């Protein structure tokens, strides 16, 4: 289509994250990618942490002591947010790909966003009150 073959792949991929003046659909598209990266990063960290925890009860107690701070809790809420958004939007995309509810795809996206926000708020309340 255009002369973009001369651009490096990283520059081309960066164009995915340009929401300027596009519709809410683009927001959904970008969030899908950000949450994917976020969850993948979380998974890696989780596995690294688990492997360290396997070194015994002492390591486990130290770990638990360290994560009881607001920053960590906030990040954990983000994991919930990312997980819900990515999961629900994923289901939405699968449905659409099979032709179910294509006409309502934007309404479905907004529902996904709303549910994610509400669920995140509920989790946040619970997690911060421990």
């Amino acid at each position, binding site marked *: 289509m255009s002369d973009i073959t001369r651009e490096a792949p990283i520059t081309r991929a960066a164009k995915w994250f340009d929401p300027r003046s596009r519709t809410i*659909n683009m927001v959904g598209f970008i969030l899908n990618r950000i949450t994917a990266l976020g969850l993948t990063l979380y998974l890696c960290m989780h596995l690294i942490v688990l492997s360290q925890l396997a070194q015994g009860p002492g390591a486990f107690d130290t770990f638990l002591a360290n994560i009881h701070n607001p920053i960590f809790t906030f990040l954990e809420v983000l994991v919930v947010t990312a997980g819900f958004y990515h999961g629900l939007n994923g289901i939405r995309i699968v449905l659409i790909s099979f032709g179910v509810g294509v006409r309502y795809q934007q309404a479905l996206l907004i529902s996904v966003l709303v549910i994610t926000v509400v669920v995140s708020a509920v989790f946040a309340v619970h997690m911060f009150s421990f």
Partner: protein
Amino acid sequence: MSAIRWTVTFQVFRKKGEQASHFDEFKLEVDPDEYVLDGVERIWAFHDHSLVYRHACHHSTCGACGMRVNGAEKLTCITPIRDVTQDGGVVRVEPLRNFTLVSDLAVDMGVMYKHMDLVGQHPVNLDTNEAIQPEARPAGPTVDRPDYLRLSDCIECGLCVSACPITASSPDYLGPAVLAGAQQGGILGDAQVFHLVDSEDGVWRCHSAFECTAVCPSFVDPGWRIMDLRRQVIAESFRQLFGGSNPKETGSKEASK
């Protein structure tokens, strides 16, 4: 059209040949019900004869005047100025994304045109609303007479291609316009078209952003058509798997719609 007059600033993208691009500013007095294209035309006629832009019909049938207005894809001949700015505001006009720039606001859509022919999109079609999903048909008592021929909805304006984030990053992606064209022309009667569509640069490259459907000025709904194509491709593949006959391999040119 009224007697109200606004003062708006047009910021127009300029680029000739290998020079660096820049924006030129023009302060215009406009009737807010006039169209963005009218502003561009006045700039050319009275301020800068070197401005290059594409237009022809001025009533959304030719598809030539697509541009980005304040960042969003618009068909400028039917976009009133009041829809994009207010009195004293800015109208930023840029060429479409994802096409090779010819000059200033004009782009080269040659590849898209070539692929439209390749997938067999019919420029003139039977006038039936079955070609689009029921809930997306335009409101109002449009007459639905399947025995009449009508110029098809897609005007090949390229707005969907410009808005598609995948086209921005994947140079070989057929793109929403072409895939919608394939759905309209039919994929089951032609092996070449079927394989073009059922490929990594065909329907499977789409990531369901639906920007294409959002910007289409002509009721084509490319997003829905791409999903419909996926269903057709999967159904056909299942049929193949369970030893059904092979219509796509016969290479007959009979389109299914």
